[in-house]
């Protein structure tokens, strides 16, 4: 097949930077791992998994403010009018989240944050296993946090399912290689090509990693350093 056979020439441009993709797939792995460790009573691993998710959530929020262009909330979170406009088809394909995808990012990130915070305060029925911050709350409050930790997990699972179904629809019906793009970071666009992702500097990445790791370490120690 020659280029002439193509109605429009297309080229691949970079859409997602490495940190954004890495956070995404690590969260996928760790949510699954957290579920498995909780089901099998491997609570030491469950805590480590939760700390890592906490670090990733902190980093992702920071990256949504100071990261690469397509990771920034200001760049992709749209109002209801833009979202309705998108649904009606008046949306120019641009690298990054579409207005619906933006809602998915916000919902999943918020649920993940809620889930991790609840886990930090949770206490098991025997008072033996607990999140590090449970030391600041009563047994009853810790038990309530554990109950919510379970409820929010169900909501999170439902949203993950919705996310997977939506992505599946875009891949299968609308022929958009979204999963591949989240893996290698690139997507094909017709000419004239839109602006690719504007990456953030290495210094900003370093600040984010130190910030996320530092906050997580302090939380895991329950702010007690002695």
């Amino acid at each position, binding site marked *: 097949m020659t280029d002439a056979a193509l109605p429009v020439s297309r080229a691949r441009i970079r859409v997602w930077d490495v940190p954004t993709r890495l956070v995404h797939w690590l969260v996928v792995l760790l949510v699954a791992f957290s579920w498995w460790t909780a089901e099998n009573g491997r609570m030491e691993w469950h805590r480590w998994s939760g700390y890592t998710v906490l670090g990733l959530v902190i980093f992702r929020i920071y990256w949504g403010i100071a990261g690469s262009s397509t990771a920034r909330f200001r760049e992709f979170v749209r109002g209801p009018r833009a979202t309705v406009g998108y649904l009606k088809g008046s949306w120019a394909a641009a690298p990054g989240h579409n207005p619906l995808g933006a809602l998915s990012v916000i919902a999943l990130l918020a649920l993940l944050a809620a889930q991790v915070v609840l886990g930090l305060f949770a206490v098991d029925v*025997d008072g033996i296993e607990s999140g590090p911050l449970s030391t600041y709350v009563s047994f009853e409050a810790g038990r309530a946090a554990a109950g919510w930790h379970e409820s929010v997990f169900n909501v999170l699972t439902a949203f993950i399912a919705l996310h997977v179904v939506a992505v599946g629809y875009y891949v299968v019906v609308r022929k958009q290689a979204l999963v591949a793009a989240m893996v290698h970071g690139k997507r094909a666009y017709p000419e004239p090509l839109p602006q690719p992702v504007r990456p953030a500097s290495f210094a900003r990445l370093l600040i984010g990693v130190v910030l996320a790791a530092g906050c997580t370490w302090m939380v895991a120690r329950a702010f*007690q350093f002695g």
Partner: protein
Amino acid sequence: MQGPMFRSAVLVALMIPVVNAATPLETQKARHEHYEELGKAFKAVRDQMNASSPDFGALQKNAEVINEASVNQQQWFPKGTGPEAGKTRALPEIWSKPSDFEAAQKMLADRAPKLLAAVKTKDIDAVKAAFKDTGGACKNCHDTFRSPEE
């Protein structure tokens, strides 16, 4: 000696244990509360273990609660207080395998005094090790004799 007074007295005497005895549901509720107290004591010990400067007074108080419960719990499972009596996570195996259950309960009764002893040495690393052992006794019994959480 065989008059109506005597017979009434015998009858009353026979009734005393019946009147005093808790119903199976009451026993289940009391048992649940006892274990909740035990859970609180475990949390309190864990809280102190994680503190930058542990309060050994609080540790001793809670280690004593655990120690007492480890002995008392052997009375918390009278016959007829299993799932047949009401909603409980206590499994029928408690009553169908009494010697296994007794051994599982004894494991806690053996280990809880060691936790208390470790607390008295004021060596937090020894407390952590003993806590892990004691918690292990809980888990050991729960794995076999308590149904999983819903």
